[in-house]
Every structure is written in structure tokens, then in C-alpha cells.
């Protein structure tokens, strides 16, 4: 099963990699964006799809990663590796603190706590003006250069993001099929039973939460490079909600599904809006359609049909 999936994924990656240089600039930009947002969606899937915790604050870690890169790159002219490390570390630290507060709650309460914690980060981004430049945002983040490799062009940056997404997907994929990942699925199924079996449920959930935050932060670091700009808008609730919708659309608990969902939404938003001003209606219709006819998401439905 894993072998077949890896084969499919490899085929998709090769197809993307092959097609990249031949694409016009704008679709390539969108594809890059989809890859980055895809990392964020996959990271949310680790806790939403596999552990059964729906978070409304995932933009927080994404934002911490993005802000870390923006500040390091513009004020300290830090290089790619230092920025990446800082972004991921800070996102991990944020998730580690927030996890302590959030993991005690379940269901709606978990949703509300993560929402509130997400708003804390938004508030900091907005009000800590000396650090974040507040509402104006931080502009002028240069595209990264890695040693002799100049990643500033659209094509090299696309490959960099493709590689990053692939690594993130592989790592998270290994995580969810590991014994630890199976433990998470058990918790999703029945927390009490897992506790009775002797699993440390709290620790499992906490670790999953932090790992998820790490990958969200990783996505955020790429986002800062991609836009060259970070503002409180990237950290706000809408970003968290949109991520949640991407996971729901693609299929929670499938990992590749949320990435696909991210891709679909990025393209819907940017292609459909060219043809009609009512594109929000189409986006809304798509959500409703998926929830009615494929409650387990697109990939979930495809897998379900096969069984």
C-alpha cells in the first residue's frame, strides 16, 4: 500500500518537476503557492485528520515562521538556513507553549482555545509595531540564496518549494504510519480505550500538536520568501479557516488529500475569479458539494469507492 502510494506520489512529483520550466510565469507562481499552502494544510491534517483535533489557530505557527524569516532576512540579512532554522524553531516553541494550554480541551473547546491562541499571535503581529511593523507589514524579504545556488528566479524557487513539500510530505507520511502515528489514529477512534491500553494519550496529542506546528512554521518560512512580504493578514483567522477548509475538501486523514485541497482552492481562487466576479459563490458551492457528497473529502471518497 505504502509502496503504491509512494509510486503515485513520485509520479506526481516527476510530472510537476517536468512541467515546471515550461509553464508561463503566472501559473508557475500559483503552483509554487499551492505547494507552500499544501505544506500548511498537510501539517493541520496531522492533528485534524489523524488525531481528531480540529484547530482554528494554525495560521499562528505559519505566521510565526513567516515573521521570523521576514525579520531575520530584512533586519539581520540572515541567510536561508539561519532563517529556516529560526522560523521552524520559533514555530515549534510557540506550538509547545500553546499545546500545554490547548491539549487539555477536546472538541469545540479545543477549537475555541486554538482560535483564541491564534488571535494572540495576530494581536502581537498587529500591535508589536517595533518588531513587526504592525498593520503595514514587513516588505522587501529577498528570495533566498543557498551557497552557490541562487533560488531567486521563479523556476529555481519552484523547485525549492517542490523539494520542500516533498520532504515535508515524506516526513509526515512516515510519522503517520509509524507506531506513534498508529497511536494517534487510535486516539482519534477512542481516547478512553487507548488510555485503558496504557498509552500516554496526553503526550501523544501534545507531540502531534507540536510536530504539526513545526511543519506549519516550515510552510510559513517559505511563504515569507514567496511573497517577499508578511503582514498580520497572513496570521488572521481567515487563513486558519481556509486551511481547515482545504483539509476538509481534500480529505482529512489522507495527508495527500489536504495538499490536493490546497491546490484546488488556490487555483479556484485565482482562475475562476478571472472569469466571474461571483467566484466566491462557486467556491462556496464546491465546499457544500464536497460536504454533501463526499464528507470524507475528495481523496477520502476515491479511496472509499475502491474498497
Amino acid at each position: 500500500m505504502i509502496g503504491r502510494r509512494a509510486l503515485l506520489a513520485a509520479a506526481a512529483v516527476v510530472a510537476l518537476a517536468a512541467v515546471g520550466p515550461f509553464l508561463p510565469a503566472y501559473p508557475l507562481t500559483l503552483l509554487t503557492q499551492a505547494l507552500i499552502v499544501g505544506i500548511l494544510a498537510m501539517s493541520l491534517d496531522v492533528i485534524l485528520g489523524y488525531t481528531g483535533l480540529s484547530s482554528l489557530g494554525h495560521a499562528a505557527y505559519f505566521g510565526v515562521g513567516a515573521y521570523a524569516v521576514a525579520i531575520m532576512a530584512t533586519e539581520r540579512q540572515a541567510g536561508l538556513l539561519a532563517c529556516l532554522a529560526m522560523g521552524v524553531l520559533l514555530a515549534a516553541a510557540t506550538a509547545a507553549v500553546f499545546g500545554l494550554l490547548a491539549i487539555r480541551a477536546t472538541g469545540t473547546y479545543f477549537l475555541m482555545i486554538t482560535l483564541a491562541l491564534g488571535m494572540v499571535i495576530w494581536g502581537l503581529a498587529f500591535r508589536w509595531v517595533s518588531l513587526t511593523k504592525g498593520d503595514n507589514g514587513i516588505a522587501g524579504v529577498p528570495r533566498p540564496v543557498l551557497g552557490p545556488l541562487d533560488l531567486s528566479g521563479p523556476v529555481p524557487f519552484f523547485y525549492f518549494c517542490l523539494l520542500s513539500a516533498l520532504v515535508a510530505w515524506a516526513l509526515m507520511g512516515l510519522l503517520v504510519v509509524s507506531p506513534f502515528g498508529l497511536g494517534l489514529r487510535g486516539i482519534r477512534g477512542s481516547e478512553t480505550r487507548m488510555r485503558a491500553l496504557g498509552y500516554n494519550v496526553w503526550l501523544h496529542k501534545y507531540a502531534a500538536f507540536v510536530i504539526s506546528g513545526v511543519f506549519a512554521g516550515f510552510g510559513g518560512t517559505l511563504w515569507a520568501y514567496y511573497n517577499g512580504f508578511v503582514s498580520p493578514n497572513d496570521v488572521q483567522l481567515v487563513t486558519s479557516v481556509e486551511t481547515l477548509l482545504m483539509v476538509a475538501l481534500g480529505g482529512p486523514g489522507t495527508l495527500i488529500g489536504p495538499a490536493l485541497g490546497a491546490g484546488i482552492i488556490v487555483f479556484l481562487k485565482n482562475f475562476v475569479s478571472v472569469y466571474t466576479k461571483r467566484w466566491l459563490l462557486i467556491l462556496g458551492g464546491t465546499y457544500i458539494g464536497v460536504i454533501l457528497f463526499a464528507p470524507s473529502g475528495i481523496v477520502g471518497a476515491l479511496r472509499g469507492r475502491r474498497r
Partner: protein
Amino acid sequence: MTMRRSILLLLLGLGAAALLPASSPAQGGGPIKIGLLAPLSGAFSATGKDMLVGTEQYLDEIGRTVAGRKIELIVEDTEGTPATALTKARKLVDQDKVHVLTGGLLASTGYALQPFVDSVRVPTTFPVIAADDLTQRKPARWIVRTGWTTSQPMHPFGEWVAKTLKHKRIVTIGMDYAFGWETVGGFQRTFEDNGGQIVQKIWTPLNTNDFSPFLAQIRRDSDAVLALFVGRLALQFMKQYEAAGLKDRVPLLGGGTTTDESVLPQMGDEAIGAITALHYSAAIDTPQNRKFATAFEGKAGKSASYYSEATYTGTRWIAEAIKAIGGRVEDRDALLAALRRVEIKDAPRGPIAVDQWNNPVQTIYVRKVEKVGGKLQNTVIATFPAVGQFYKYNPDEYMKAPLYSRDYPPCKHC
């Protein structure tokens, strides 16, 4: 497996089809393409509509033709977020190959677009975005601002309030973000330089639903209150200011958006008497403005606002520049130079030209809300011709001081 594989192939095929460009871009003799970025969905969609209608109104007036070439307007929705604005700007530049980029509403969008525009070297105009530093401490090479800087109307206004209204002690209350800080900061600077004192500064969060706790703090012994609000918040502030019994006790002054025509028609008598300053008023009594405002009302079914005048005149600005270079928009450097040289003497808002930092020098109007013929309007009660972004200050010294912020200028008399 076959089922899934075929679906996957189908999806891949569809994806590939969607990626192919609809048509290859025409070079040379084709239409002149103008890309407009406006928030057409989301919280700012009403403003976005004003911007769009203003643009189309001018294009229709000139039959969508300049210097013998057709104009093609390509509109993109920014959703009011800078990241989306950037994506759409990339689309307009990379895919549509626009010759001129224009639009944008929020300060953050301006700062986000600036490095991008400078890197792709596409002549760009900002008809609305007012963030001070875009033409001061962080000027962009490829952007010409045809709108205004936030503090620009407030400089003469602060002086006028001190000298003409003879207010001594003023309380400010405003939205807690850059636009609010720059409005209040500009006012404070000239008001205090002319002998006034800001005795209290209150900042309200952007998502405030109830102003009572803030209104209760306002010092009742002050001579006036300066308020800066936008959109829905302006409507609510006005109502609550009256309900708190302040309207008849402490006169209300404000930044231009507090009584802008985009919100004024929805206000009641509570707004009457408020004095604000801006580079436009729909009630400016010139033939050009009457013509513009009447035509806009006919087209949009609502009052002309500063946003609609901004894109109306902004589009004319672009057209004048294109005319000046005989329609050869492919020469980007020439187009940019032409955009900087444009001078309009008879815009609805009055005469405009840009200074060496690409910011307009224009007339500032002090307006008082009055009810004329059953409708509220911003009656002009004082005008300041040819006001630049630095007002009477030396530009170099001005830019050495920090940008107006929450804490600058400091509140010395609080």
C-alpha cells in the same frame, strides 16, 4: 487501481489544461492594457466598487481610446489582503502583460506591492493608498502616487484649527493602525506647532463594536475631539458620540474618511456640524466636480466619494501620460517619466501635480457637514491650495524625524 489511476490522469489533464495560457500576449499595436487592483469582495467591497466605477466612468468618457489606441481594462479582486493583491499583481504583469498597474486600497497592500513593482519595472500608480512612507522614507521608483498621503490634509487642518477655530486643548480618538496614527500625528504636529495642545490620545481596536467605554474616557474639559474612523466604524462612532451627550458639549473634528461620502448618506443628523479635512469633497462647487459627481451618481446609484474621484482622476492621469508619449506605452521608462510630468488643472478635486517624491501637490479642503436640500454634504468652508506632503516643513528634516506612529509625536500634554 485502474479507476483511481484514470481519475488521477483525468485530474492531471484538467490541471494541465487550466495551466495553459488562454492566449499569447500581443506585442506592439494591440490595445493598451491597464490592470486595476481593487477589493471587490470581502470587508472593503463597497470601496472597491467605488474604485471600479470611477475608473470605468473616465474610460467611458474617452470612449476607451487614447492616442488612437484602444484601452483594455483588466480588473482583479484583491479581497482586501496584501498577499492576494500580490498574487493578482503577478497575474496582471506576467500573464496579461499590462502596461500600467493601478489601484490598491490598504497601506499594507502598498508596502507589499512596492518591491514587486520595482523588481518587474512596470509603471504603477496608487490612486488611493495613502501610507506616508511610500513617497517619503521608502520611495518607490516605479510608483507614482496620484492620491494623497495620510497626513497631507491634516497638516493645514491642524494649523487652521489652532488659528481660526482658536481651539487650545484637543482630545484625539482614532483607529489603532497606521492610517489612524498618521492622521492623528499629522494633525498633532501642526496643531501643537501653532500653540495648541493634544491633551489625550485614545486608540480604538479595529474590531470595536461599542465605543461607550472609549467615549466615557474623553475629557469633558477639552475644546474639541478629533476623530478618525473609516466605513462602518465611522457610522457607529457618530451615533454613539451623540448618544453619549458629547455632540452638543464638545465640537467634533475629524480626518476626511470620518465623514466621507461613502458613509455620509447613511448618517443621520448626528453628523451635522462635524468639521473634517481632505483633498476632496463631493460638494466642491466647480463645474468639473458637479459634472463628475452627477455622472457618478447616475452610474453607481450612490454619492461620489473620494475613492471614486481618486480612480476617476487617477485613470485620467494615466491617459494624459499615454497621450504625452503618443501611445508608445511599450517604452516603460518614457511612460514612467510621462506619469511623473502629468499636471491636471481641472480635476474634480482641483489642480494636481506631483512633487519630486511622486506625491501629489494639491488643494486641501476643510469641510463642514451640513444638511442641504434634505441631504448631508461636506460643505467646503476653507481651502488651502498647492499643499505638498511636507507642508511648510523642510523635506529633509521632516524625513529625519520618525514616521508618525502610535507614540510619535509623543503626547506631551497628556
